[in-house]
């Protein structure tokens, strides 16, 4: 590595980011070196400590720099409702969009046997312990609507059901402000099947 020029090392390193190819990486490297060295220094420091100090919450598996994340540690949250999501970004999205006041559990992916992801890779055992050991009355499934997301939802639903929890699933259907003729047939079929009384 030492005989590769530092500039090239920087460009190669930047390419670990999603969507950054050789061209964007070069542009970023030159920008930092030519125009914003202070920004680059700050990025380096924050990146180094983030990678070092941010881990997973021991209760819900979301990203946090503490042993237990802010949401799990908050005594105001309703401990009887647990929302199961695939990724930490889903927690963020739900927190911003909904008034949900319960707790979360992050699986860290979805059941996808063809990618080698089975129940063992997703912390299902930890979820089972949590459902057994705590006063969870309702489990809300908020997995994606892909086939793998469905399989994951079914797996968790079975497990939670066998442990005596009520299981609900977030609705899927026509997006707000969407016109029916532009909605794809699969979504429309789902929306139609899941209609409710007004």
């Amino acid at each position, binding site marked *: 590595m030492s005989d590769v020029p530092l500039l090239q090392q920087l460009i190669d390193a930047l390419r670990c980011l*999603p*969507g950054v190819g050789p061209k964007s990486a070069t542009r970023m490297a030159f920008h930092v070196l030519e125009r914003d060295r202070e920004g680059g220094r700050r990025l380096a420091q924050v990146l180094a400590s983030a990678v070092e100090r941010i881990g997973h919450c021991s209760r819900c598996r979301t990203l946090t720099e503490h042993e237990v994340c802010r949401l799990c540690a908050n005594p105001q949250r309703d401990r009887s409702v647990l929302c199961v999501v695939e990724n930490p970004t889903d927690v963020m999205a739900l927190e911003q969009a909904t008034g949900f006041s319960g707790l979360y559990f992050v699986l860290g992916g979805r*059941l996808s*046997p*063809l*990618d*080698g*992801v*089975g*129940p*063992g890779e997703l912390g299902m055992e930890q979820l089972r312990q949590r459902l057994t050991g705590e006063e969870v009355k309702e489990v809300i499934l908020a997995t994606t*609507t*892909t*086939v793998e997301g*469905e*399989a994951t939802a*079914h*797996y968790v639903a079975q497990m939670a059901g066998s442990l005596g929890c009520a299981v609900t699933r977030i609705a899927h259907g026509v997006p707000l402000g969407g016109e029916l003729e532009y909605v*794809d*047939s*699969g*979504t429309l*079929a789902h929306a139609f099947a899941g209609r409710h009384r007004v």
Partner: protein
Amino acid sequence: MQEHTLQPAYVLHVRRFRETSLVVELLGASQGRCAALAKGALGSRRAWGNQLQPFTPLLLAWRGRGELPLLTACETAAPAHRLNDRALYCGLYVNELILRLCERDDPHSGLFPTYVGCIDALASVSPENAALEPVLRAFELDLLDELGLGMQLRLDQDGEPIDPGRRYDYLPDQGAVLLRDARGGFSGGTLLGLADGGLEGPEQRREARTLMRRVLDVHLGGRALKSRELFQ
């Protein structure tokens, strides 16, 4: 460049590729198992992402030769098969079986109708083991036949007809071997039931499952199927 017209196909598996593209493993009516690149499928211009899902009858066109041709058109031919509960696990199992056992671009002409029949059946029977297992067993047998690995379930190793009242061992490379002992192995009734698609009772279903698992494991080369973990 070779341009295909719209052809019936099913997605077996989808993998993300770069930011907005997908690598799609397909089962085509005339191509057999193949793969294609759906460029920009998750972007805003082409919203194919939610169409390119397993168990949806699709019409697809692709262009180019080699490992990964480019998907150029994608239409939904009919609403997706609704696989519920355990039927969904079975669907994933069937897809994994095809991906593991079939080579790419080997047009097994009989496989597509067999697959469609299997998915149809999985979607229509009640999602309980008693109804789902015979569907899976029939598919496994048809798949092996299609691959030239068919099983002889009506005659034993010596060419004698299988007796439903006796017990047999089944060796994947030799076939059914009559057992002197009345215990162990598989009953002749299970072998015949499997061959005729008429398995009766939980005992025959259990035996058939064990038998097929043993035979498939040989062809899978010792690497277990991940989707089996879902059933535990």
